[in-house]
Structures are given as structure tokens and as C-alpha cells.
């Protein structure tokens, strides 16, 4: 172009009005810029971290991980060690917590859990007596009384107890009765449990068709029950089942 008028030049310049950025680029840039704020805020501290900070951060994270591992190890160790404790030991409450947690996780019903708890405490007493840990015997007995009371309440409030549950209770009571030097049948807690078991069995047997001989035995069991001789009444009831 060798010659151009001012008007043509102005018209040429105005052609540049049609210049526009690529639409997709403009849209992308806008979204990048407007969403960058959060990124900037997050990345600013990161830019300030120098080499020493990074090392400290790694050690700090490791320290945290080690602390966590130690705590975890201690927890596992305490729970593991507590499994071998008996009533009267320092860590016995931990064992009880573990048992309750386990029962909750396995979805055991209140009655079954009470039966299992009593059985565990009776086994503890057996172990304490066997190992001659005289100092632990009072605690073991107290635990049995407590769990027997809970089981009695559970048994009275439960309407769904089955024969297996009763068998388990009877078995535990037999085991308890066999522990040398610890006759607990006269204690209110154990006596109450015997009463509850016998009462439950009498009700069941009265609704069952029995032979004449069995009926006679049941009558004797009821009589013993009324006299407050629950252990003897239970022995009679067990004869009916045989």
C-alpha cells in the first residue's frame, strides 16, 4: 500500500473491532481465574515451606505416626493382657469392657450375654480357686453375685428364654456348686437365680403333657419351691427332663 487516505486508514483500524478471542479460551480462562482463589489460598503456605520445614514436616508426621503406633500397641497390649486377668486384678475392668464390646459386636441378646457373663465369672472363680489366689476369691465371688443378680432380672423380664439357655444356666450353677470351699447357694443373688430358673421351668412343665410319674415329680418340685428349697426343686425338675 503506497497511498492511503486518512478515512481509509480509520476504516482499516475499525476492522480490528472484529478481533475477538477464541470463545472456548475465554470461557476456560474465566473459570480458571475465578476458581483459582481457593487454590491460591491453599498454595500460598505451601510456597513458603522451605527445605527445613519440609524435613520438620516429615519428622513431625513420622512422630505422629510413631505416637499413634505406640498408643495402638499399648491399647492392643493392655486388652491382650487383660484377657488373662481375674477379678481383683488391676486390669480386670478392661477385660469386662472387652467382653461387653465383643458381645455388642456379635449382637448377643441381653439374656444370652448375662448367661455368658455369669459363666465367665464362675470360670474365673474356678481358676482363682485352682491357682490358689486367695486374695482374688472375694472379688470373684462379688462378680458372680453381681452377674447372678443381672441374670435373674434378665430371666424374669425375658419371655423368650429357650431350653438351651436354661440348660446353660443350670450348667453354670452346677459348676459353681462344685467349686470347693465356696458354697454360694445360700446367698440372695444365687438363691434368687435358682428361684427364677425353677419358676420358669415349673411354668413350662405345667403347660407340657407329662406322664403320671413326671407329674408326681413336678408336684414334689413345686412343693420344694414353695418351701424355698430351690436347689432341690431344680434337681427334681432335671429328673423330669431325663
Amino acid at each position, binding site marked *: *500500500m503506497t497511498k492511503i487516505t486518512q478515512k481509509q486508514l480509520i476504516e482499516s483500524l475499525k*476492522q480490528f473491532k472484529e478481533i475477538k478471542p477464541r470463545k472456548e479460551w475465554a470461557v476456560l480462562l474465566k473459570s480458571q481465574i*475465578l476458581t483459582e482463589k481457593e487454590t491460591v489460598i491453599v498454595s500460598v503456605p505451601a510456597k513458603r515451606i522451605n527445605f527445613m520445614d519440609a524435613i520438620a514436616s516429615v519428622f513431625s508426621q513420622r512422630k505422629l505416626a510413631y505416637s499413634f503406633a505406640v498408643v495402638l500397641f499399648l491399647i492392643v497390649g493392655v486388652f491382650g493382657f487383660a484377657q488373662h486377668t481375674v477379678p481383683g486384678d488391676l486390669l480386670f475392668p478392661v477385660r469386662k469392657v472387652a467382653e461387653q464390646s465383643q458381645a455388642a459386636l456379635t449382637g448377643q441378646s441381653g439374656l444370652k450375654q448375662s448367661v455368658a457373663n455369669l459363666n465367665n465369672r464362675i470360670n474365673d472363680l474356678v481358676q482363682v480357686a485352682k491357682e490358689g489366689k486367695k486374695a482374688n476369691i472375694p472379688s470373684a465371688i462379688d462378680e458372680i453375685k453381681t452377674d447372678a443378680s443381672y441374670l435373674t432380672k434378665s430371666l424374669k423380664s425375658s419371655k423368650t428364654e429357650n431350653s438351651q439357655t436354661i440348660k446353660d444356666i443350670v450348667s453354670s450353677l452346677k459348676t459353681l456348686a462344685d467349686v470347693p470351699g465356696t458354697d454360694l447357694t445360700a446367698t440372695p443373688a444365687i438363691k434368687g437365680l435358682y428361684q427364677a430358673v425353677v419358676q420358669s421351668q415349673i411354668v413350662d412343665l405345667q403347660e407340657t403333657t407329662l406322664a403320671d410319674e413326671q407329674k408326681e415329680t413336678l408336684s414334689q418340685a413345686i412343693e420344694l419351691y414353695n418351701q424355698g428349697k430351690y436347689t432341690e426343686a431344680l434337681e427334681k425338675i432335671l429328673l423330669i427332663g431325663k
Partner: protein
Amino acid sequence: MTDSINEQFGQIYDQYIDKIYRFVYVKVDSQEVAEDITSKVFTKGWESYQNQSSEIKNPGAFLYQIARNAVVDHYRDKGRTKTVSVDVSPDIADPGTNAQDMAILSADVSNIKKAMQKLEKDHQDILIWHYLEDVPIADIAKLLNRPAGTVRVMLHRGLKDLKNIIQES
């Protein structure tokens, strides 16, 4: 509050993206460079806007100032002179001219752009604002912080210089 600032800057972006891109595009040698610089302009603008939105009374002037500095930085960083090759010719048409003029003008767009880049920076800016963006002389005077009469003279001189550069090429 954050959403409000986002929305405000989003509106400013929509209003000025074409203008700033054009402003930059005329001064540099390629679409890629224009996009890169425009991107920097709005990114920097957004960073400043988040901290001092209440102090920015004229977003247009604010962005144009960033753009002017960004173009200067671009040439300084690249160690280039203002004489640069033009490798992209915009696909544009001017509905305001007849067919013969349009053919002449379209063919010469690259030359005009090249010639524009040889002008003084202030002359470039004034020509772009006045003829490309239809900014009144009074507003350009405010953008440059100069008297309107001076701007008018600079506009006339810039146009004359541009014409001479084109005719000498």
C-alpha cells in the same frame, strides 16, 4: 461476600475480555502471545481485585493499565524491539465499507498491524482506544492522566505517523 466479589469480577471479565484481548493483540505478534498476556492481565487483575475491590473505581482503566505494563514486560523479557513479524491475520470484515475498499483493507490488515507496532506506545494506545473501542477523547485523557487537548493532538499525530509508516512500507 466471596461469591459477590466473584460475581462482580465475572461481570468485569465479560465486559472487558474482548477489549483487553484486542488491545494486546494489536501490540504483539501472535494469537498465542496475545492469549498469554491477556491471561496474565486478568489473573493479576483478579488478585488485586480480591484485596482492594473497593479502591478500584474504574475497572476498565485498571485493566488497561495492567495490560500496558504486561505488554512492556513482554517485550522487555523477550528482548525484542517493537518491530515484529505478524504471523496471524485476523479473519475480519468491515460492513461499513464497499466491496473494493473491503478487499483492499482486508489485505492490508497485517500491514496496518505491523505499522501500529512501530508507533510510539502512547500513540498506539490512543488509536486503539479511540478507533477500536470508541472511547471518547475525554475518557482517554483520564486513562492517560493528560489534558484532553494533548490527547487530541496525540491522536492526530499518531494517525499521521501510522499513515506515513504504511506509505513508506
